């Protein structure tokens, strides 16, 4: 008689060895791949009824319908204009500040740097309500300017911290070598410092754009009902409409900039530029 131990069964052995990996894989499939796949399918489905596994009728009809809705036609330019404006303003405010953080010694520097974490340290919604009260007094609620300001607040942490790290990562000796061969401080900044931090700056700008494009609560509290962005529109569309296609299509629209970001990030990481910018 031969005794059969549990570990001698190949499948069990495999599972004991790879168990955690398999659990992760299952989690990833159910948590990320399947929902995204469902959204993707819904966006291009015309008819999809139980018990069909796949849509029975495909087409772009709902894309036409979604993108021609009056509220979305108003919100999409709003969203894009808002994201561009916030990104540009944030760059104008934060990049010189981050250069100063990286290069100058001044009293309270560490404290100031850490203070940018505060906006992220409190529950967002409570913070927004408090801000909304102040904005109300300044008549900023319901205005485009109000939404811009609240979004700017969100971008500070990212746009200060990433470029500060990047500027700190540039070895001063590299800049001195530039001065040494005859470049003026401005030439050194433009031709040596900036190209070296560019990947990190670009990543920060792209993240700012994407975050602003996505942001919902601030836009909802301060902007609605006069200034509507795509994510704000999505809420009632998903909650009140029996048609899942609207939500699916809008999700894909919101997805687009982050896909661009991911593709770019991938290229940056492969090229080693990102880490180079951080002086690693």
């Amino acid at each position, binding site marked *: 008689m031969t005794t059969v131990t549990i570990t001698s069964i190949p499948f069990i052995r495999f599972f004991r060895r790879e168990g955690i990996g398999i659990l992760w894989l299952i989690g990833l499939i159910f948590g990320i791949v399947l929902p995204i796949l469902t959204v993707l399918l819904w966006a291009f489905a015309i008819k999809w009824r139980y018990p069909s596994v796949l849509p029975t009728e495909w087409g772009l009809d709902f894309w036409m319908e979604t993108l021609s809705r009056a509220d979305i036609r108003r919100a999409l330019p709003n969203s894009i204009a808002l994201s561009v404006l916030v990104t540009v303003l944030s760059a104008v405010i934060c990049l010189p500040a981050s250069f100063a953080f990286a290069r100058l010694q001044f009293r309270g520097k560490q404290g100031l740097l850490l203070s940018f974490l505060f906006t992220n340290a409190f529950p967002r919604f409570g913070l927004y309500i408090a801000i909304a009260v102040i904005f109300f007094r300044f008549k900023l609620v319901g205005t485009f300017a109000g939404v811009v300001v609240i979004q700017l607040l969100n971008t500070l942490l990212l746009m200060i911290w990433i470029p500060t790290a990047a500027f700190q990562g540039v070895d001063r000796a*590299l800049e001195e*070598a530039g*001065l040494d*061969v*005859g470049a003026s401080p401005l030439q050194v900044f433009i031709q040596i410092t900036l190209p*070296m931090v560019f990947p990190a700056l670009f990543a920060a700008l792209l993240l700012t754009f994407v975050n602003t494009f996505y942001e919902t609560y601030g836009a909802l509290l301060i902007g609605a009902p006069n200034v509507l962005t795509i994510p704000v529109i999505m809420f009632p569309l998903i909650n009140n409409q029996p048609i899942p296609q609207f939500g699916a299509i809008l999700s894909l629209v919101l997805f687009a900039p982050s896909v661009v970001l991911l593709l770019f990030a991938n290229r940056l990481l492969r090229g080693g530029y990102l880490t180079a910018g951080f002086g690693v």
Partner: protein
Amino acid sequence: MSTLSLHQIRKQFGDVVAVHEMNLHVNHGEFLCILGPSGCGKSTALRMIAGFEEPTAGDIRIDDRSIGMLPPNKRPTAMVFQKYTLWPHMRVYENIAFGLRLHGFSRKDIDEKVKGALELVGLPAYGKRFPSQLSGGEQQRIALARALVLQPKILLLDEPFSNLDALLRVRLREELRRIQRQVNITAIFVTHDQEEALSLADRIAVMNKGRIEQLDHPSRIYEQPQTLFVADFIGVMNLLPAHQDGGEIIIGSYRMPVPSGNEYSGDVTLAVRPEDLAIVPSGSDAAWNGQVEHVIDLGHYRKVLVRTEHMGVLKVYLPKAVDVREATTLALQPTRYTIFRDHQTPIEVHAGSVPQLSLQGMA
């Protein structure tokens, strides 16, 4: 013809004085090493010449024209740094061409000069590479090419080889010397490595605590140190505390005469090189007796540590032929030594013909 002179240069960071009133004159085509331990102010001195640090006081002149007021990008100096400082986003060619473009050279001239510079440092085919594709030694050669291509009046080198391994360091050192002679440029080389300084320099300025202790030719720095610091810092030296009583040095139970005219009373320090200690017949009155504590075989010679009664452990270099082992009793006598007294010119003493014992038969 380019000469450099520093007049009463001083640099102070807050309360700390990095460089005390420093005077230095470097001749045209000369290779001068500034040698000293870390923190002695040598790099600060070099950075003041390059313009990266502003002197607190004093004047820096190149060809007798003051450059103290010029920013680094306007100075006729070029620097090779300790760290690798090639710009990582530019190819080697662009790294070298960068300065030329700023100076408004034509494309044809730039091409010619870059190729010439690459040729000079022995890396003619490296133009298209990125710095990350080069080894440390190659990067420093390109950095040298980048510095030389602008035909600066003074070449400054701040420990350029200290990040390289020992063998490569020796090779690059020789190559640097060849290139420096070939282009006939005045060069200032900062290092903490005395071997590097002794083998490279026309003259060495030994610095300590922000001051030049001795400025001299390499052989004189070794043979005739003018201060206790230089005596201790350069090469290996036995430093023996002693007492001088008029015309006699008293060290332990030994008494040695001092050349006449050097009478003095007070504490002194005797400096004896390990190679200046000779073995004499035991029983001789003037001999320093001791017991071999440790023998280190260094290839063509031996370093022997001898424990003595009054002078602690002496370092002695002996040829391979001398058969010494641990616990061997030795009688030693200095053939040459220097007497250092507080704030006075050191006295060099040649002991003359000390009777040498035939080495066989020593037990």
